[in-house]
């Protein structure tokens, strides 16, 4: 006879709850950021007589001013760190010395670049189609097919050890609005979603003379483009 046969429904549910309850969770996000985001939702509902793009643009402005551009969560003793921050980008040190970069909005590239450099990643970050001309591609450091979900070359697989997530920047159709977003100007119909790109970097896998470049490709589809480039003071600091 199986002991499982004797388990009541309550026993089964308790076993499931215990299994999930043991899983470590990220620290709750900052309450002020949650409330700021909530105010943006509320204001969107309260705008009377304004429809369509104008309403969306107004809410976007409120949301942007309410949120900090970037965050770098503090370490915790148990090694588990929060990954949720309602900000333009988040840099988190994760297991194995890897660094997880979550980008929600194309804002404050200089802040993100400084944050990565402070965390030991020689980096160049530009949220514009024109990249830093001082950066030269490292052999095997540029993905071939930008629409694939994961790195292609051996070097890319080591430097970016996890499949990329959500590199696509916007669901808007191609055209003038598309390019406006790529160049960092507000699009006519801004997206208010929390869509985020996630790029995991393994700094120890970088060759000694290499760094990371995060930019934007506007070749066909608007995508965030992580690459390995030659390190130099003009490019990666």
């Amino acid at each position, binding site marked *: 006879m199986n*002991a*499982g046969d004797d388990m009541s*429904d309550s026993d089964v549910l308790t076993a499931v709850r215990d299994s*999930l309850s043991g899983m470590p969770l990220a620290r709750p*996000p900052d309450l002020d950021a949650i*409330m700021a*985001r909530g105010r943006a*939702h509320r204001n969107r509902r309260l705008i009377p007589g304004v429809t369509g793009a104008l309403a969306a643009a107004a809410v976007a402005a409120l949301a942007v001013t309410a949120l900090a551009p970037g965050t770098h969560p503090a370490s915790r003793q148990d090694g588990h760190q929060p990954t949720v921050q*309602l900000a333009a980008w988040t840099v988190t040190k994760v297991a194995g010395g890897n660094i997880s970069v979550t980008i929600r909005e194309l804002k404050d590239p200089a802040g993100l670049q400084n944050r990565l450099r402070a965390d030991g990643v020689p980096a160049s970050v530009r949220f514009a189609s024109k990249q830093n001309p001082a950066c030269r591609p490292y052999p095997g450091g540029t993905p071939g097919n930008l629409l694939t979900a994961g790195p292609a070359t051996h070097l890319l697989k080591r430097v970016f050890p*996890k499949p990329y997530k959500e590199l696509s920047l916007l669901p808007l159709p191609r055209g003038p609005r598309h390019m406006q977003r790529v160049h960092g100007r507000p699009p006519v119909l801004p997206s208010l979603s929390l869509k985020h790109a996630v790029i995991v970097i393994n700094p120890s896998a970088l060759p000694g003379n290499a760094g990371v470049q995060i930019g934007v490709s506007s070749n066909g589809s608007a995508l965030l483009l992580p690459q390995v480039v030659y390190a130099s003071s003009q490019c990666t600091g």
Partner: protein
Amino acid sequence: MSNEQAEFADFFRASWEPCLRAVLAVVGSPQLAEDQVAEAFAKAWASWRKVRRHPAPRAWVVRTALNTGASGWRRRSRELPLADHDLIVPGDLGDGLDGSLLTALRRLPPRQREVIALRIFLDLDNDTIARQLGIEAGTVRMHLSRGVMTLRRELMPRTTTGG
């Protein structure tokens, strides 16, 4: 801080973890669950005067988070696929956690997962779950029964006794 803000802050602090665990049980991705629950709490604050009078405010947050997720999944279906590493796998779990049980949970139909999550993390009864999901209480019982039956089968081999 106003009384209303203090009240919401208390609710947020007390409810973040159970709501996150409930959503995590349904969506299977920690990061996705965290983002969706954060967004749901933001919406709860936007509608706090309504939510605070809700018979099950935590259930409201969980349902809102899952609805947010549905929209997100629809968006993603037009973009890049969800990467495998974004889902819970046994290697992501700490010591003592039952990866096979969680895998079995993930294989349940979404509605069964949702019913189970609302039951075990928010401790809601069938009638309340039914109101939250907009279905009949009998349907809740059916989803719960079928989900538990599947999970029990997952538990059985590991609790088999000899002799």
